[in-house]
């Protein structure tokens, strides 16, 4: 990024959201990133096929979350008695009194927020990718998707499964169902998709597609 010493047209500037340092706007070459010279925060990630990759990964996330919610997730047996549960059973396992609140939070964090976030990303990015004008309220949708980011806890939950496995191992025999493997793949996809997402590029694309 160039020196920001000479402040002219603000449209030619990019500010670091983390430390407030100004830079002259210059798009990095394909495959490269522009870093803040003051704090090192990634300002722009340039990838030609980022949009289509995010779309593909988002659709995969939606399919996998829904599948993992319906199909058996984990099964257990001890002394001849067996039990199998889906992701939905796990998320709604707090049933008594105030603990229902934890069920609500769990459903939000591992099912609804990830679904909502990917749906919003598809809503925003799909028209851009196919050279159509942005859908109504696309800006608000993308802001919401970004705000939801820390609250989609898919990958945290999948590590929770591993810890539960260890805790229960001396009590009973535990087995992973198909939905568990889907969910593990899903967690990886979520991490990869987040690496492709460059918010600066999407805001720029939105602006170019539909100038305010």
């Amino acid at each position, binding site marked *: 990024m160039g020196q920001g*010493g000479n*402040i002219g047209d*603000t*449209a030619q*500037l*990019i*500010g*670091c*959201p*983390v*430390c*407030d*340092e*100004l830079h002259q706007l210059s798009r990095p070459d394909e495959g490269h990133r522009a870093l803040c010279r*003051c*704090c090192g925060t990634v*300002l722009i990630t340039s990838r030609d096929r980022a949009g289509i990759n995010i779309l593909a990964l988002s659709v995969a996330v939606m399919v996998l979350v829904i599948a993992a919610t319906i199909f058996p997730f*984990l099964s*257990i*047996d*001890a002394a001849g*008695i067996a*039990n199998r549960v889906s992701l939905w059973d*796990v998320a*709604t*396992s*707090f049933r*008594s009194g*105030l*603990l229902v*609140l*934890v*069920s609500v*939070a*769990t459903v939000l*964090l*591992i099912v609804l927020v990830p679904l909502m976030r990917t749906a919003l990303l598809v809503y925003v990015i799909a028209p851009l990718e196919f050279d159509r004008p942005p859908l109504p309220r696309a800006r*608000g949708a993308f*802001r919401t998707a970004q705000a939801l980011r*820390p609250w989609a*806890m898919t990958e*945290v*939950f999948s*590590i*929770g*499964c591993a*810890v*539960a496995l*260890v*805790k*229960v191992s*001396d*009590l*009973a025999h*535990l087995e992973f169902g198909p939905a568990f493997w889907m969910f593990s793949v899903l967690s990886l996809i979520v991490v990869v998709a987040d690496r492709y997402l460059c*918010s*600066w590029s999407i*805001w720029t694309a*939105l*602006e170019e597609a539909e100038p305010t």
Partner: protein
Amino acid sequence: MTRAIDAGLVTCTECASVWPRGQGTCGRCGNALQSRHTRSLQRVWAFWLTGLLCYVPANLSPMLVTSTLTGTSANTIVGGAVEIAKHGDIGIAAIVLGASVAIPVAKFLAIAYLAVSVQRGSARSPAARLHLYEAVEFIGRWSMIDVFVVAILSALVQLSVVASIRPGPAALTFALSVIFTMLSARSFDTRLIWDEHNRKT
């Protein structure tokens, strides 16, 4: 080096575009523009304190109630780890203690340090403090593991008289404490670190 605040400009924290000071909303993304989140520190401390108030009962009441053929036992977070250690799994006990005791306590201390450092000043470089902040932000969500483990166990271990596991009240207070510390960390305006640093030099 020029910062937006010194040039009479405001950076949009959402889309990184730059606008003249005084403009209310970002013309590119529609985000509310604020040169600094003025009530940032009040919000940090309010969420921090609420999180701490939830964290204390989370450690005193049971997280899991296990019923087996030999009887019923209710375990707090630390009690559960001690139980695991007695079985000989020292490594797993250490992981549980690390995730539910060491990390939350470290998070409370780190956020408090960051907030005090921008109020009172600090000898540490801004880069070091930003790394600390990024670590807190990264690690914050992972504390939910414990709540998810309780959810998985209570859903799964329902084997009539052989064994059953029920969640205890600490599951709620612990989940709340994680959520409030996440909100506390997210309320912190990192630009204040450089403001404090520039005041000194």
